[in-house]
């Protein structure tokens, strides 16, 4: 075998590594994570569905004020944070680094506000006697188990997202993370928003009296 046959020409490596999807591997990895995570949320929401429809005496404890209104405000905050995330990705793409960092910080703060409202609601429910294994309204005790586990898993995602956004803002400011990193973080954040689009109607609105 000649040496020339063993040597790749200039640019050959980049051509060989080009993704058929036309996106960076880190962005593809995030998409695969999102699909797997969507299946996770899908399965627990199906599980909740079994309980909800299979229990004729399922409680509907949520009043419009404060619970539904509070959840609607949380939805508004999370949807708005998706918009600020898009502004961050847009600014990062255009090379406006300080503006991107500011939008990332605003997005993280909106995430903190969402988590704060969520925790306040949880502690109010704890005060009324709700828990994973106790239902003060009567009916299946699994209401608390399904409500707190699904909203808890979502809240865990929000918390992880706020940490990721903070790390991204600091890293982007220092030039360690580029626009694709910001966009990939944005994909995760939009997914957290997307999951809430199912949690809000199924766990709050379907349980409003």
């Amino acid at each position, binding site marked *: 075998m000649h040496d020339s046959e063993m040597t790749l020409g200039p640019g050959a490596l980049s051509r060989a590594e080009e993704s058929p999807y*036309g996106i960076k591997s880190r962005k593809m990895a995030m*998409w695969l994570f999102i699909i797997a995570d969507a299946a996770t949320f899908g399965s627990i929401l199906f599980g909740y569905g079994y309980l909800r429809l299979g229990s004729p005496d399922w409680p509907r404890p949520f009043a419009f004020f404060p619970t539904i209104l509070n959840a*609607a405000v949380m939805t508004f905050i999370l*949807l708005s944070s998706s918009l600020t995330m898009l502004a961050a990705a847009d600014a990062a793409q255009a090379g406006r680094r300080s503006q991107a960092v500011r939008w990332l910080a605003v997005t993280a703060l909106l995430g903190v506000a969402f988590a704060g409202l969520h925790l306040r609601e949880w502690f109010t429910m704890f005060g009324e006697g709700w828990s994973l294994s106790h239902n003060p309204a009567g009916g299946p005790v699994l209401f608390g188990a399904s409500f707190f586990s699904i909203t808890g898993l979502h809240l865990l995602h929000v918390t992880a997202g706020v940490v990721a956004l903070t790390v991204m803002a600091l890293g982007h400011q220092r030039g360690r993370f580029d626009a694709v990193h910001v966009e990939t973080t944005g994909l995760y954040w939009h997914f957290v928003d997307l999951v809430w689009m199912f949690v809000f*109607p199924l766990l709050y609105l379907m349980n409003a009296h």
Partner: protein
Amino acid sequence: MTATQAGPVPGMRLNLVVWLGLMLLVVAEVALTYAHLSTAAQLAGLLSLAIIEAAVALLYFMHLKYERPLLFWTLIPTLVFTLVLMDHFWPDALRLLHLRLGAP
């Protein structure tokens, strides 16, 4: 957009319009909740609105509309297929409901 090329990502003006549309869908969901429908009709209505919201967020916020079509056709049918397979458990769950013992 060809089968292999990604399209341009939209500007903030379109994002704002999409955000407003999503907010309107949330208001519609809350209105539907207090429309005194049966549980099945309420569930069907809320799920339909949630699926529309999720599709809009996927296409515009997550830019799936502007990626190569291959990405969409690789990811979304896989997810839908998985969720449909999970749905096969439904009839069995309802059968088990009828096997419940009555209270003593």
